[in-house]
């Protein structure tokens, strides 16, 4: 059962060190948090730790939903359109809609420019 994997990670996964076994680098998380808006002043020490776990859960959920789209398309390769489809199909991922559709638009524009040269 997929959820069991995430759950057992919670119990036996690495919480033993402050910086060590977190899956995602805390300093980088803190930097992204600071960049999120002009007026973020101070960030408590444990907030990036919460995010390191939250981002794991987020990546797992987004990957899971995207993979379902790939299977629907009878493919074994997860590609960007699968992610875009998953984002559109999931309400709480609405904040990502611009991101996944902008990327497509940029790529298309680049292709058109190259073709006209």
């Amino acid at each position, binding site marked *: 059962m*997929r*959820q069991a*994997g*995430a759950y057992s990670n*919670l119990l036996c996964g690495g*919480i*033993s060190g402050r910086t060590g076994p977190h*899956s*995602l*680098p805390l300093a*980088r*998380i803190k*930097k*992204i*948090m600071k*960049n*999120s*808006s002009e*007026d*973020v*002043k*101070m*960030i*408590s020490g*444990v*907030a990036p*730790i*919460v*995010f390191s*776990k*939250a*981002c*794991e*859960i*987020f*990546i*797992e*959920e*987004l*990957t899971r939903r*995207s*993979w379902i789209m790939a299977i629907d398309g009878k493919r*074994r*390769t*997860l*590609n*960007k359109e*699968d*992610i*875009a489809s998953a*984002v559109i199909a*999931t*309400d*709480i991922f609405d*904040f*990502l809609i611009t*991101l*996944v559709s902008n*990327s497509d638009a940029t790529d298309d524009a*680049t292709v058109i420019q190259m073709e006209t040269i």
Partner: protein
Amino acid sequence: MAGIREQDQYMPIANVIRIMRRILPPHAKISDDAKETIQECVSEYISFITSEANERCQKEQRKTVTAEDILWAMGKLGFDDYVNPLAFYLQRYRESEGEPASVRRTSSHAVPHPPLPLSMLQQQQQLPFLSAMPVSSIDGNNNCYGFGYGFDFDQGFYRDGVGGGGDASSSAAAFVPNFDHCFPHLKRDNSNM
């Protein structure tokens, strides 16, 4: 030509791929643009949640964005299924770091309260019985993260007495800190009246 990606505004791609691989079957392939898109989505997620949390801090005239603010923002923005597992993770982290109870009590405070008697602290820091709560939840997100516990960061776990926190709709309510247990002397006064 696409600009050079500033790698330090994203999570390292190797870490992202490793997490994705936990979910995907072994034969699955991931295109390069999919990897990059997930990387971008993660950074966007962090920014999205942090902005909301920061707004709350500003409204309450606090300078520090705390873990509690982050979890509150997640609940508000629809990620309430994440809140309980994250609260549990944070609790485990704090215990493994050997943070003394008094430090945990005073860190990241929104509301001051009198010190708790030792017996109450001991009671609260017991780990919850995870087997007591059925894990399945029937909601659109198909997520099984409900544990049925509310969380007050400064005092450890409290049980959500208002009904299960296992479904998405009630877990936001479960997250609202319940400070009733801070003032047991007042409760006793009420019952004596």
